[in-house]
């Protein structure tokens, strides 16, 4: 059922009891709620926002950026039922098997689990996100000629793959009626969590304290707790709970909030002028939705072997046609000269009169970096609920800079190797700076990362907080590394996996 705590107000100090308490009604939280309730496990889900976006609720997310330029924190996610699925673009791709492995050239890389443990949940995650028939892309690149037009570019060291696209689904809206009908689920909206209460032994969670705006305070007691508030709020909640553990829950090694990762996007930098030998590029257009294959958006990514050889982070390249050549000429000197020269490399009689030009969308992996972090505001600034607000220090390292540069160089080399025209590689030579337009993808990851033990992570391979027996964390904050794929599909897959684990725990406790 769905309970609006603002209108259906609880008594002051009322205590609700349940088997599992899920904190957060976004992609991970709602997935776990739905799975558990369907399996007969009683769940209370606490969502701070309502059914629609409100300024007051969004203000709770307000924080300060201390690192490189980033989006305003209260605008970079959504605080109402469905969370940031209310604003996502719908791009879905699984992480690669190599993303889970330790890569010696990437400090702090490696998950405590492998693709074998997450892979089986991807197909189901794809179903929930309505991406159409799932093609895992784990073992093989694009099924040439099967689902896509043409064969794409044959580039040495690269492979053509695709995002499968969700419509995109807004899970709060999509599952609202279903959640209302589920007897075992009590989804409480306008229920702002203000405190995570540990038992005095600090070995388990005892309860969660909630507050309704302009209303009463109440508690939820449960056998298991799941924190699923996103990559910035998860560490903020843990760090604010300092009554039993003075450094915050799960923070005995000062890891909570560290390793904040984004997918740095450096779009529309380099320019490519396809030459006469280039095959049709219709292949790389966003494909229309069909029942047979859903909707797809092809992109180019380096092969695992290339990444290993070059010792780079993962990255993707998406093609964007540039039609305003005059504008591009201002940005890219010699454009017309190079194009006209290139055209002579082939059949000048067939050369088009105006250059075809493409730039690239370039989302990439960020290396785990302990100095890139979410922390509590040292000035003591608090939100309306009395919690210390967050600060974000987003830092990129020399590895991202090198990857950015080499990604474009490698592509230029592969294009030239196939007589596919010329490319202007513009990401800076100067490794002290990133291009001005470097931005994130609204993906907040890594701040309560999975690790082998509490020295390397905040949660274990199941998502359980080290040292706290009944507290789990869901969402992209548990990612140990990020790959270059958008995170939502993996968030849902991990949530399904955690739900399975919680079901088995609940069966044992019944």
């Amino acid at each position, binding site marked *: 059922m769905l309970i609006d705590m603002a209108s259906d107000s609880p008594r002051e100090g009322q205590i609700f009891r349940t088997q599992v308490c899920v904190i957060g009604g976004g992609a991970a939280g709602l997935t776990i709620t739905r799975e558990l309730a369907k399996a007969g496990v009683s769940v209370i889900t606490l969502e701070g926002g309502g059914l629609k976006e409100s300024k007051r609720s969004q203000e709770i997310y307000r924080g300060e950026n201390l690192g490189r330029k980033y989006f305003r924190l209260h605008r970079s996610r959504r605080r109402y039922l469905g969370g940031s699925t209310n604003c996502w673009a719908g791009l879905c791709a699984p992480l690669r098997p190599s993303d889970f492995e330790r890569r010696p050239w990437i400090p702090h890389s490696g998950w405590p689990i492998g693709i074998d443990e997450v892979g089986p949940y991807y197909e189901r995650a794809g179903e929930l996100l309505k991406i159409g028939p799932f093609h895992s892309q784990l073992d093989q690149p694009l099924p040439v000629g099967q689902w896509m037009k043409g064969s794409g570019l044959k580039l*040495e060291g690269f492979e053509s793959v695709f995002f499968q696209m969700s419509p995109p689904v807004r899970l709060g809206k999509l599952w609202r009626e279903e959640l209302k009908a589920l007897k075992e689920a009590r989804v409480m909206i306008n229920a702002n969590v203000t405190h995570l209460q540990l038992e005095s032994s600090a070995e388990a969670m005892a309860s969660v304290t909630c507050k309704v705006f302009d209303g009463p305070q109440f508690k939820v007691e449960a056998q298991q707790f799941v924190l699923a508030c996103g990559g910035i709020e998860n560490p903020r909640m843990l760090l604010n709970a300092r009554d039993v553990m003075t450094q915050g829950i799960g923070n005995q090694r000062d890891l909570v909030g560290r390793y904040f990762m984004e997918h740095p996007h450096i779009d529309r930098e380099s320019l490519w002028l396809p030459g006469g030998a280039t095959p049709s590029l219709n292949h790389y257009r966003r494909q229309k939705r069909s029942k047979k294959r859903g909707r797809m958006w092809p992109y180019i990514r380096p092969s695992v072997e290339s990444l290993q050889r070059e010792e780079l982070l993962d990255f993707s390249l998406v093609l964007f046609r540039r039609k305003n050549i005059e504008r591009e000429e201002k940005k*890219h*000197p*010699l454009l*017309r*000269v*190079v*194009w*006209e*020269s290139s*055209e*002579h*490399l*082939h*059949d*000048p009689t067939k050369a088009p009169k105006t250059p075809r030009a493409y730039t690239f969308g370039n989302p990439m992996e960020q290396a785990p970096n302990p100095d890139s972090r979410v922390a509590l505001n040292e000035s003591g600034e608090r939100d309306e609920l009395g919690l210390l607000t967050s600060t974000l220090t987003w830092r990129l390292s020399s590895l991202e800079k090198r990857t950015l540069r080499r990604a474009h*160089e490698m592509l*230029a*080399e*592969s294009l*030239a*190797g196939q007589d596919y025209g*010329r*490319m*202007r*590689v*513009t990401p800076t030579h100067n490794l002290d700076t990133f291009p001005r337009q470097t931005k994130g993808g609204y993906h907040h990851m890594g701040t309560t990362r999975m690790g082998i033990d509490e020295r390397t992570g905040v949660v274990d391979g199941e998502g359980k907080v080290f040292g706290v027996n009944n507290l789990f964390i869901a969402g992209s904050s548990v990612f140990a590394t990020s790959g270059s794929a958008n995170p939502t599909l993996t968030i849902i897959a991990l949530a399904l996996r955690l739900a399975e684990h919680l079901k088995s725990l609940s069966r044992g406790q019944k």
Partner: protein
Amino acid sequence: MNSEARLELIDTKGLDRRILLKGIATFLGYPLLSTINGCTPSKSALPERLSAQTVGIEGVQKLWKPPPSVIELGREVINNHQVTPDIQALLKALSESSKRQKRTPVELAEAIRRLHHKAAKTGSWVEIKGWRLTTVEAAAYALSSFTLVN
């Protein structure tokens, strides 16, 4: 690079210069060289001293007027990159390739193309205002623009 240096580097090491010029032109993609006769009254594409030394080269050069864009790009290569070693390396590689690969301009162009692909694979690059050219392409463009920079 001064003009004297440019003359020195055209040591074609046994290559037939006419075929070399035609081969470069064919590689760069203007097939008019081998198909059209006497279409341009251009002045010599190579430095005078070289022309004087080479029997028959005048005839080739009269037909060889690279498009302005090719000449401009060649000029950019010369102005922004120390291209002499690349030209020497290209000529050396061509002179060492098998005789069968350099009998005709088309064969020579293919040989240059293979070297170009090899340079792409091995990361042998020149960057001219951000544009990536293989060292082989850079050398070919530079050779094409000699008349204008003299």
